């Protein structure tokens, strides 16, 4: 079975799949607390499936919340090491583009909330990326939609009120993560896209 983990955005999703068919899945929306919920949720799906043999782990590597995607990657790496199974990274953009493909054949602009008044954007034609992942202001992203006659999916869609959005769950769903792992497998280097905030600090008790 394949274990999928997604903690990159405002949800924690864990599932077990046989090929692309979901056997068990838990999905909890949350803006914080991924670190506390993730391992108990993995435990839950493993229990529900009576501790099946896992042969592959698929984890979303961003873009998304820096903390969230590190939590997912750290857990996936640890499980992969302990079980001695491969861990495949997938992009939260590509997983959404794949989901959108089921509803629509037009170009798709995946837009995820990047906070601080910005969005992560990437343009796809079907499942092929037409651009790299960039951080844009919502008006600039809206211009891209117009220019490419694209439809919009993702957690940042609400920032672009005038555009045509698809009724696609804005979080990377397990089935599409598994499909992405087959079509666009990535490593486990997080897709931060943004540079780190360089403010120094010492730990306090």
């Amino acid at each position, binding site marked *: 079975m394949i274990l999928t983990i997604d903690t990159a955005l405002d949800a924690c999703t864990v599932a077990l799949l046989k090929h692309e068919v979901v056997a068990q899945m838990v999905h909890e929306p949350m803006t914080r607390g991924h*670190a*506390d919920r*993730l*391992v*108990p949720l*993995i*435990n839950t799906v*493993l229990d529900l499936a009576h501790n099946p043999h896992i042969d592959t782990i698929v984890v979303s590597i961003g873009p998304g919340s*820096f*903390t969230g995607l*590190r*939590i997912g*990657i*750290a*857990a*996936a*790496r*640890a*499980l992969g*090491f*302990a*079980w001695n199974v491969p861990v495949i990274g997938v992009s939260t953009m590509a997983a959404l583009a794949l989901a959108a493909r089921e509803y629509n054949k037009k170009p798709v602009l995946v837009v995820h909330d990047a906070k601080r008044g910005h969005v992560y954007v990437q343009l796809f034609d079907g499942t092929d990326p037409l651009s790299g992942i960039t951080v844009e202001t919502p008006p600039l992203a809206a211009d891209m939609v117009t220019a490419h006659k694209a439809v919009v999916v993702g957690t940042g869609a609400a920032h672009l009120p005038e555009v045509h959005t698809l009724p696609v769950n804005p979080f990377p769903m397990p089935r599409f993560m598994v499909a992405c792992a087959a079509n666009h497998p990535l490593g486990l*280097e*997080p897709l*931060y896209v943004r540079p*780190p*905030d*360089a*403010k*120094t*600090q*010492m*730990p*306090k*008790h």
Partner: protein
Amino acid sequence: MTRDALILGIESSCDETAAALVRSDKTILAHKVAGQLAAHQPYGGVVPEIAARAHVEALTPLIAEVLAEAGLKLDDVDAIAATAGPGLIGGVMIGLVTAKALCLAAGKPLIAVNHLEGHALSPRLTHDVPFPYLLLLVSGGHCQILKVLGVGRYQRLATTIDDAAGEAFDKVAKMLGLGMPGGPLVEAHAIHGNKARFALPRPLTGTKEPHFSFAGLKSAVARLVAGFETLSDQDKADIAASFQAAVVDCLVDRTARALAACGDVTTLVVAGGVAANGPVREALQQLADRHNLTFVAPPLWLCGDNGAMIAWAGAERFGLGMIDPMSVQARPRWPLDPEAESARGAGVKA
């Protein structure tokens, strides 16, 4: 007789990624520390986001290396201990979630360790130190005197009302343009310096208040440095030596006061990054001698943040049946003595 427990320890609360395998009979089977000095150096201090980025990359491979070095598998481990706080929360969460995932995958119990307890119990890993003992815990983030009554049982006698001693070392290193890591570089320069050249303050020494203060000393050094148009190497060495002597005096004065107040201990222990400082160790040894106490300082490699002290604290807790649920949370602040009165000026820091 039962078999000794084997504990994997994970540390990621500041700028060192570390893992170690320690047995409850005090054997250190393997330990590794991956420092991040070069990543933080351009900023002149620890950048939390950069630290977190480095931890997630380094940690699992480091655990694999430690197991390989000991010729063991994860299955051979009896429990996994990880720092759950206090510290930079982004890094703490990575170590803790990694430990939880390993525990889940391998069916092992989890032990959530207070980083400060890791330092506090570290002398018991290398020496035979019975409870209770008086502990001076001095590092970049902490400066406390604690009576260690037992595992998980601490009475805080003093803390800093402003900066930690190690923080002061780092800031002075920055003022003198010595670079990072500040503490060891100030010590190295002080060797060639005249500690009597500059009269610097020893805040709070001789007062009835039990606590530490280093902000005034730090400001005095800043004013001193500002008075120079250019600093020669000798000036730098003399300032480093004068500053270090002032810190040593503060630490000794406050520790002596705590010894008088706490009574029945037979051992004085120093732990934390600043415990690696030679003059600090010598002065505390002399203080212990004057009070007929045994003095214990961990070996230098065990003073800075490391995985062995977390594994050892885990071994102590595991031996007492103290394990934690998978839902345990990372804590940015986690005092060893939650009952301690807050010190003047320290606010939420202590």
